[in-house]
């Protein structure tokens, strides 16, 4: 029954800029997107990393955002490309550490240094800046 009404909207003209990299998209696992089929699910070959976005795709989208007048979105996407390398729990832990009153400036700075050392310089910069402003605005633990 899917797509029983497949003609929604005056959207036909919009296909023009389909993903320019559609052929080369890979999942975080490195598996080409084209291999993520129902057949592969039946064979039990698909797991979560196959469904996760690849940092390369995020880098590509950052460049697109930059070219469409939004460098801040681009920066966000570049930070997010870095975060693809971290596990869910660690991502949530860093978020928690950044909430008001959770961390001392020293803790934030140390976390920043650790991230920088692991190839996440943009995330590190965010934490470094947070340490500075939190101290001035009384948002540290």
């Amino acid at each position, binding site marked *: 029954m899917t797509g029983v009404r497949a003609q929604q909207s005056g959207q036909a003209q919009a296909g023009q*800029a389909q993903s320019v990299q559609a052929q080369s998209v890979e999942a975080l696992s490195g598996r080409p997107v084209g291999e993520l089929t129902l057949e592969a699910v039946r064979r039990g070959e698909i797991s979560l990393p196959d469904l996760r976005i690849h940092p390369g795709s995020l880098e590509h989208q950052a460049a697109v955002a930059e070219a469409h007048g939004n460098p801040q979105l681009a920066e966000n996407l570049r*930070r997010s490309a870095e975060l693809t390398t971290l596990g869910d729990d660690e991502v949530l832990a860093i978020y928690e550490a950044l909430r008001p009153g959770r961390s001392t400036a020293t803790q934030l700075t140390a976390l920043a240094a650790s991230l920088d050392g692991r190839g996440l310089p943009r995330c590190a910069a965010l934490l470094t800046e947070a340490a500075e402003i939190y101290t001035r605005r009384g948002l540290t633990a």
Partner: protein
Amino acid sequence: MTVPGPEQPVGRIRFMDQQRVNLDGFAVEDPDLGLVALRSPHDPGPGLVIRDGRVVEMDGVAEQDFDSLDAYIARHGLDLSVAAEVMALPDTELARQAVRPDVPRAEVIRLCAGATPAKLARVLALLRPAELMMAMTKLRGRRTPSNQAHVTNRLDDPLLLAADSATAAAFGFREIETTVPVLADAPSNAVACLIGAAVGSQGVLIQCSVEEALELELGMRGLTSYAETVSLYGTEPVFTDGDDTPWSKAFLTSAYASRGMKMRVSSGAGAEVLMAGAEGKSMLYLEARCIALARAIGAQGVQNGGIDGASVAGSVPRGLRELMAENVMVMMRNLESCSGNDALMSESDMRRTSRTLPIVLAGSDFVFSGFGSIQRYDNMFGPSNFNAEDIDDFLAMQRDWGVDGGLRTVPASEIGELRRYAAQACRAVYQHLGLADFTDDHLERAVDAAGSKDLGETDTLAVLSAAHAIREGGLTVVDIVAALDDTGYEAEAEAIMEMTRARLSGDYLQTAAIFDEELRVLSLVTDPNDYAGPGTGYEPSPPRQAEIDEIRQARGVDDLRAEQASAAELLLAPAGPALAGQDPRDVVIGVSPAVGRDVWRSLSGLTVPEVLGELLAGLEEEGCAGRVVRFNDTVDLGRIGLAAARLAGSGIGIGLQGKGTALIHRRDLAPLANLELYSVAPAVTRELYRLLGANAARHAKGATPDPARNPYNDEAIEARYHTTVIALMALERAWVQPGEPAEQLSKEGLQ
């Protein structure tokens, strides 16, 4: 008679007091409390000082005094290369550029990137309603407007969620947002909506709005595909009370993107006022800070326009203008606008329509950030400004104005099939994965239900335990796909896999992105708004226009002909030529050309033979004899009545159109004159027709009866019946033959 004293207002005022609008709260403007829409005396003036490429003063605050919002905006939110240019531009000039069709959107976007919050607040405060609509038409990022639905229910019932999700998807909503009355049910709601949406339409994005960590977890497992309840506030204390900082929100924004999830932030007027933290600033200025921050942290879009505080804005002068200005400001910052209208802001149908209509007409990336696709009582976000009660109204509004609000009519039979299929698929998956078992009766009820109250008693603990199993078992979208496939729902399994693949390119992380039903991404990048005045910009394609126009209530002449034919009887057969009567008690009832042919039911619901029966009975009661004569050369009731009078021995005639309009005529009157008239055919009763017959007889006898009076009521008679009248008159006119003589009709069977 009651004479009102000085302490009691007159009846006219007492009557006005009773109207529903007076249930709403209206506040006296009070800048100190932040109860002021567009401009407070405490708002700072716009200003920006840049030294060595660094913002050292913004909107009157020096860098060392920046709060955390100022600091984030100043460091990340402004394009300093255009800042000097835009800050030097007079407010009116920037306001005009936002409105004028000949100034390209890109130019406005370029300039606004360097504008401070106070600058944009001043500029937006200048725009009047029609100008806000022009600005929204031009400045929204995506060319094609769209809409978002709330799908929730009081019981978190999965089968009902699946059926309602399929329904919302079929109606055209491209995002579905669910939430829970019981937090722990969230994983179950996400799964049920995912399955339902896949049945209703391809490419619908799903959100489960809950506490941030759980929401992110559901997204990480691929069960949901976007988030929007990431709240920003306009003052530092309220922001901190919300347990976040600009940096934690910036990080969260990246966290969502890192898992390939679309995300927008949420803000809007009234939030700070409600928390007594507005610091005397206007709603628009505080929101300007939120929007600047949204851009600064790299969110692709903003849900605003009051949201939970919409009625706070609605309580002050110019409040609705402020809500729309918020949406336009988001667009000026080159972000996706999800334009509010998601909280019932008034008890008055007129006020809530007035709040929403300009945005529908102008078109937004999402006209609603949650149209309640379910009934008000089932909306676990609280009633939206429009709900299931209003879907037909909304479809009619789209059609009335010829605008695309994102919705479409779905044939009733198709809705039935989709709901059944979705509920069955959901039940099969829950059973297959050992989550829960649902009875046939439960399924039937969910398919038919207009809301959760129609489900009867359900096992809500089973839902909780299913949700627990989904969460603890670590189920992902792959498990749902496999279960659908194993239970015979291969097409839906394939659809979800296709969507999962499509999301991996990240194209839908761009500003204002949705998927269409062919899984093409429509966004600021792929479907940019190119409005530049009349004849440009978004226009529904012919198939889409047909979807908008063809609401299920529309009727044509053929529909009416069939309806009339179903009331046809073997009566009113021609009975020879109509001759002039000689008897002074002879009264002729003249009927219109289609009577006894195509027109059988009058607008009151009485059949034409029933109406004639009453007229004849009334004549008889007063000692007159009636004849029925069909006039074949005119549809004009005055002419029919006069011609009938001229044939009648008494000189009195009754004219009756098949639709039920009737009058009494006399042979010496002008055609357009009459003695008595029922012009409101839908409201005429059997008793009134009988009275008309009796009065005609009294006229025939030379008496002067108390005239029958037109029945009036307060219904929109014309709205209800004009389309039918047009079709009935077309049927009548088709039988008109100039010069064709009148003919007597058989009275047999009329009484």
